[in-house]
């Protein structure tokens, strides 16, 4: 076999091996991370860390496309439960009026150069984007279930209050890879703000229940 032929065969083998390897999801993921580094080259190290670097839960949910196998789902939920934090005063039911404002407001935390939010701008929960909550707000989305009459449906027991709080603080405690943002866990809302949202859902005076 001539050197030339051997070289060609070698080259072919390499190409074949490379193609086979490229099929591997792990390698795609690796290449994606490199591509993201280049594509978001303007992001500061802090922005990268807070906005693009994945935590373990995000990485697992991405890898399993939000349908993790049972044992992975259990570990994600266990971790979420372990990380649950509550307001310093221990009150899980806050002020429903504050809650309504948080639920209605969509802004805050947008980094873009073209249409940025002011640094330190108030952040909303934007609940109406995905949930129908009150009769008066008709422009409500349907990505999540309707929550109108929540107190009637769920009751106002201590367990119900705790369930609502934990759902908003970290929805993945009860449903691994839920699409709902982990508002409390990620520090988007404070424990007190989460408690205000709980009141918006459960207070009999809240428009959710009237």
């Amino acid at each position: 076999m001539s050197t030339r032929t051997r070289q060609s065969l070698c080259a072919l083998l390499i190409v074949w091996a490379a193609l086979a390897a490229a099929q591997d999801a792990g390698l795609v993921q690796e290449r994606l991370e490199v591509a993201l580094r280049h594509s978001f080259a303007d992001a500061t190290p802090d922005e990268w860390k807070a906005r693009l670097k994945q935590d373990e839960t995000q990485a697992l949910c991405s890898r399993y496309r939000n349908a993790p196998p049972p044992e992975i789902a259990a570990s994600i939920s266990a971790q979420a439960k372990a990380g649950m934090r509550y307001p310093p005063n221990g009150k899980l039911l806050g002020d429903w009026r504050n809650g309504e404002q948080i639920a209605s407001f969509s802004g805050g935390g947008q980094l873009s150069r073209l249409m940025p939010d002011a640094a330190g701008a108030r952040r909303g929960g934007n609940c109406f984007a995905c949930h129908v909550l009150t009769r008066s707000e008709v422009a409500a989305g349907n990505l999540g279930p309707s929550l109108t009459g929540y107190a009637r449906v769920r009751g106002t027991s201590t367990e119900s209050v705790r369930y609502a709080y934990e759902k908003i603080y970290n929805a993945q405690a009860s449903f691994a890879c839920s699409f709902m943002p982990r508002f409390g866990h990620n520090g988007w809302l404070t424990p007190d703000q989460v408690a205000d949202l709980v009141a918006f859902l459960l207070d009999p005076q809240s428009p959710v229940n009237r």
Partner: protein
Amino acid sequence: MSSRTHVRRLIVALLLVPCVWCLVALSDDAQNARAREEIDKYREMLQEGNPAELSEARGEELWNLPAGPRRTSLAQCDLGNGPGKLEGAYARLPRYFEDTQQVQDVESRLVTCMMTLQGLTREQAISGWYKADSNMEALVTYVAGKSRGAKIQASTAHPEEQQMRALGEALFFRRSGPLDFSCATCHSQPDKRIRLSEVRDFLIPADAQAVLAQWPAYRVSQGHVWTMERRLVDCMRQMRWPEPQYLSEAIVALEAFLQKQGDGAVMQAPGIKR
């Protein structure tokens, strides 16, 4: 049709927006169905006088206008079907180009042509790309219009194209940031809305096709045409991600994945959107 007629129709359409809002002010499930119906009607009405036609006409002028240090037009630009062959070219992008050894979308390819044919620097070619009435907006609208009636057929013959599509697919599902968002958060379930805006399911061919057939699109809320890159950059703003660089690999990869999902759609671009 004169531009004045366009403007008049647009004003009428815009005045009707609050009326549409009133009409959808019913409740719950009936409200959902009613909302969609009214939004569809509103869209249909707007289709009659899509101001994107102005952008398209300006794009044609720009395409044939000698410009840049070399005083050359873009008429010999190769968008994948050969120099100057525009018919159906958009419907097959993004694709791999031998000369740049890159998978390019319509915008990155136009930048290549501005640099190689007209002698512009990259900075000059992309300057103000996102602004209303930018040259990029007009050129993309014109080029997309030349694919009207053509079927989207995303090219995946080249290994680099396959790789790009795989990257885009992985990115579509990649969650990060303070709200845990990925594209899939809003775009992987049928019949969903964020507030009153439909968010289509890109994993369903019919849904993906309905979207991709319409881009680039005139956005009534923005008052000008948005390219697909502009659209995706804005999705990432709403996801609370940092802003990706224009023409970057992440954006082109997502486009490669989305175009593939929309395979077979008959292009109707430029479309019109909220």
